């Protein structure tokens, strides 16, 4: 459409979408040219039509959608051609890359699709998309607010990824799950370059696949596409063998291209694609096929974890993220996320946790809760195809959860228990598993997406039943052909040297057909057991992975105690010696005295050197890292004694509305935390309301605000004003590159913090 409009007089800076209102005849004429060329599906001229892009144009989304649909309808008159409501990217990046919230993206799309259906479009087409999360918002908006069929097409580079990193397998798994009617690839490349990508898509997709390639590649200078209609058509012939359901052209193509295509493909019977269904879960970036032992990390679950509970109560997302990253580094392939604590708002915590974890980790997640509302809220904001943990054989649970899993396209864990509890025998557990698989099928979930958990019982209490779990596992795997999942660690509850029992049980379970052990991936013996299993069962061919991991390594010997003082360790930024020195110090001193008498004085020295310019930022932060190791030792010590942590006052930090610079704020947070302050980090792009709310909630006496741009200083001023108007008895410190002490005073801040060191000095002054 764009190509054609430009040939009809649209100038480069002009918005093509407005032409449907200002020059409806031209738009209809172009639509008609495609119908006459043989297009059975034509696009409305609405690629850039959304509330964000139309802002300031003087037209509403409705105006444009109605005008464009009318043009297309008119062009189809008297033919069998149908009208697709064409929807392109919103034009802003979603959080975390940008500032557009998922929920807002949903609203933007809802406005378009509702207007489109009312205006008389036959189908909805999302195309040229690069962000899977944005497509999900669009597809949900379309499915929930219209009855139209939905097609979704993304644009890939030659490496098979979109600009935001989404891969073909993730796109297919996610969008098939969400219930679109067709999947496609368009734009970016010509037929030759798209071909291998199309083949990949056809291999993994069960839905119809459509392709709209560009007319080759653009000339870097002139931007003109390099292949003719004949060439295009010739190159597209290859696609017949793939079994694609529909073809067309994108940038650079014209009705001439379509005319040749239509002639060439006329009468071609679409081959039934034979795609092999696999068990796939994914984030946008990473698709995991469960065809090997796939470790699910269990550490984000507050049960029995004091520090995680505390982090959840304080909304300390950083602690969760640390756990996520540590598990990923240790080799987990999926992360279980359970944030259930009776005293917190589990729904909003699940939403925040999923968004935050997905902003730093590409691993697929398993959404774990006993509450349906929590699971649904989590599924809604999840980017990709997750696992739901869990349903069981209880009819009411199945009836409630399976439709939700189906709607959001999730895989689901089924526990072999029901109204009557956990049956003892393997046979009875198998019967429940069978019921779950059948019920899932009734709701449209295929067995590739059902993972059965035969439930681990505690060996110390029900020793005779341990073997039943293993037998059930084997039966389920062999007779139902589904994937299996099992929480392993429960086996050793109440026994000494738990890791030993856990590892042995894990090995047995793997041998009985366990696909997805839910374990602590930081447990080296358990990960080693899996690596060994893969060698022994010939999954790890020629023991390549095993050798890569273990060849040339000798079991690590802890560094000899260097006797380095805590102060020296912190000054030199050495983590292990700092931890060792802290352990030594604990033999004679109280944690509080170690903090105040050793750690803080050492940090003061580094801070002063930084201020004087004799030490630099990386050293300051490395010392901070070493101090954190020492703090961890003290925390663990106190925890073991069942005592409270050494804590100072709370400080709230945030980057203000509209600004997404947060490195500086994060440095400040790190250094303040070093001094024992409890830093509540609200993140970036935070509105005055959000900051006021948190300041009240946490009763803070000091708030730190960051802004980096001259254009966001206004938001800083508004935030300070809002804090004052709310009558909160707190002082405000501000920092950021464009600020000056004078400007800080001018916008009503109490303190100007020129750097992280200065913020500590201010905190000491205000809070002691």
């Amino acid at each position, binding site marked *: 459409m764009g190509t054609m409009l430009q040939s009809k007089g649209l100038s*480069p800076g002009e918005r093509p979408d407005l032409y449907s209102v200002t020059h409806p005849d031209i738009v209809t004429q172009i639509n008609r040219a495609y119908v006459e060329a043989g297009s059975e599906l034509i696009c409305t001229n609405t690629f850039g039509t959304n509330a964000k892009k139309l802002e300031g144009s003087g037209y509403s989304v409705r105006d444009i959608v109605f005008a464009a649909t009318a043009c297309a309808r008119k062009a189809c008159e008297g033919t069998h051609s149908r009208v697709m409501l064409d929807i392109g990217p919103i034009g802003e990046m979603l959080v975390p890359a940008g500032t557009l919230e998922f929920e807002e993206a949903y609203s933007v799309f809802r406005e378009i699709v509702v207007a489109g259906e009312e205006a008389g479009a036959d189908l909805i087409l999302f195309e040229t998309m690069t962000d899977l999360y944005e497509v999900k918002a669009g597809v949900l908006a379309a499915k929930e607010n219209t009855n139209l069929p939905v097609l979704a097409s993304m644009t890939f580079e030659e490496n098979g990824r979109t*600009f935001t990193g989404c891969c073909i397998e993730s796109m297919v798994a996610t969008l098939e799950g969400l219930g679109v009617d067709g999947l496609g690839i368009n734009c970016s490349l010509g037929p030759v370059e798209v071909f291998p990508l199309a083949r990949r898509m056809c291999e993994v997709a069960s839905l119809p696949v459509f392709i709209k390639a560009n007319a080759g590649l653009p000339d870097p200078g002139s931007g003109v596409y390099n292949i003719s209609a004949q060439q295009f058509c010739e190159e597209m012939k290859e696609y017949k063998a793939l079994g694609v359901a529909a073809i067309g052209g994108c940038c650079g193509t014209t009705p001439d291209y379509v005319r040749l295509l239509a002639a060439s493909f006329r009468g071609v019977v679409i081959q039934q694609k034979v795609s092999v269904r696999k068990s796939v879960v994914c984030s946008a970036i990473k698709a995991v096929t469960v065809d090997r032992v796939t470790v699910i990390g269990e550490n984000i679950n507050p049960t029995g974890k004091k520090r995680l509970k505390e982090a959840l109560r304080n909304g300390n997302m950083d602690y969760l993220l*640390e756990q996520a990253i540590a598990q990923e580094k240790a080799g987990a392939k999926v992360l279980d996320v359970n944030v259930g604590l009776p005293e917190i708002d589990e729904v909003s915590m699940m939403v925040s946790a999923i968004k935050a974890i997905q902003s730093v980790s590409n691993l697929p997640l398993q959404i774990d809760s006993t509450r349906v509302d929590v699971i649904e809220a989590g599924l809604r904001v999840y980017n990709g195809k997750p696992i739901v943990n869990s349903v069981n054989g209880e009819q009411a649970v199945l009836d409630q959860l399976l439709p939700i899993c189906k709607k959001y396209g999730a895989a689901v864990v089924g526990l072999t228990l029901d109204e009557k509890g956990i049956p003892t025998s393997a046979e009875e557990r198998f019967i429940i598993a069978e019921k779950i698989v059948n019920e899932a099928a009734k709701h449209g979930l295929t067995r590739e997406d059902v993972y059965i958990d035969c439930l681990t019982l505690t060996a110390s209490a029900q020793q005779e039943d341990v073997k039943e779990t293993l037998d059930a596992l084997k039966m389920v795997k062999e007779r139902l052909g589904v994937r299996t999942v099992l929480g392993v660690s429960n086996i050793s509850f109440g026994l000494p040297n738990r890791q030993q029992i856990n590892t042995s049980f894990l090995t047995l379970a793997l041998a009985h057909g366990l696909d997805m052990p839910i374990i602590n991936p930081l447990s080296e013996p358990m990960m080693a057991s899996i690596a060994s299993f893969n060698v022994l069962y010939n999954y790890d061919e020629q023991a390549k992975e095993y050798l890569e991991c273990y060849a040339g390594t000798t079991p690590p010997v802890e560094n000899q105690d260097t006797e380095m003082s805590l102060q020296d360790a912190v000054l030199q930024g050495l983590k292990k010696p700092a931890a060792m020195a802290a352990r030594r110090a604990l033999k004679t001193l109280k944690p509080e005295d170690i903090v105040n008498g050793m750690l803080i004085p050492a940090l003061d020295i580094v801070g002063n050197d930084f201020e004087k310019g004799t030490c630099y930022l*990386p050293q300051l932060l490395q010392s901070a890292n070493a101090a954190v190791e020492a703090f961890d030792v003290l925390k663990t010590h106190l925890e073991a004694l069942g005592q409270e942590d050494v804590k100072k006052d709370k400080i709230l930090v945030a980057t203000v509305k509209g600004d997404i610079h947060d490195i*500086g704020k994060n440095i400040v947070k790190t250094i303040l935390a070093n001094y024992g302050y409890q830093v509540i980090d609200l993140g970036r792009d935070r509105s005055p309301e959000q900051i006021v709310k948190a300041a009240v909630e946490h009763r803070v006496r000091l708030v730190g605000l960051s802004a980096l741009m001259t254009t966001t200083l206004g938001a800083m001023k508004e935030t300070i004003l809002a804090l004052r108007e709310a009558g909160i008895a707190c002082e405000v410190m501000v920092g950021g590159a464009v600020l000056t002490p004078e400007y800080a005073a001018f916008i009503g801040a109490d303190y100007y913090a020129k750097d992280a060191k200065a913020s500590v000095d201010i905190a000491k002054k205000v809070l002691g």
Partner: protein
Amino acid sequence: MILTEMIILEDVYRRLGYPVDNKPDEYTCQKINEVMDQVMKTAAIRSIKKEFTVISLEPFLTGKDIDRHLVHCHKCLLIAATLGSQIDTLIRKASVSDMNEAVIMDAVTSILIEGVVEEFEALVRDEYHQQGLYVTSRFSPGYGDFPITVQNELLRLLDAGRKIGLYATPTHILTPRKSITAVCGISTQPVTGHLAGCDTCALESVCQNKKEGNTCARSSIKIQQNVDHGWRHGNHVAKQGIISR
């Protein structure tokens, strides 16, 4: 061009706050190398350019400084480049587990995108030179009195979202974060452009560089738009968007 060659280590040191001729300690140097490896594996560098007549861009070329820069130019070139959004994820991830690594990564990627644009600009200049035309140095929104509010329009004119996945927030911050947009003038006579001085810079009163008696236009320090300095870390500044040579 090998990517690592686009990162001038001296500039990374300076970004981290080390004074001229002052090399960081061994640990930090090693960390910088590790970070560079990670960055090279993750960066998805893309760039675009598009030519316009100066007249057609007039509504967007606001401020005295850009006018001065484009004197004697009949045409101009919009350019944009990005390291891609996975770099942002990498930095976010590092911010959680090791702030030191995050800060180093931030510095390395800032210098890298600067190097990428430098290289791109040189290529473009050569191309034009072969046609007997001259290209000024590049001038970015946020430099001098050229407001960053034009960012979104420049991206639209470049169709940067579709072509290289580059967008701006409603507050005109480029996303992915490690990205640059700029304007170069094209002339039939030799031109270099006129980089703005300190007097119109947003950071005039706090700029460490200026305190040391340098200007961005003269010193070897490269300060560019979209640089994340928060509470002025280190002893030097960022700004709402400067590009210097």
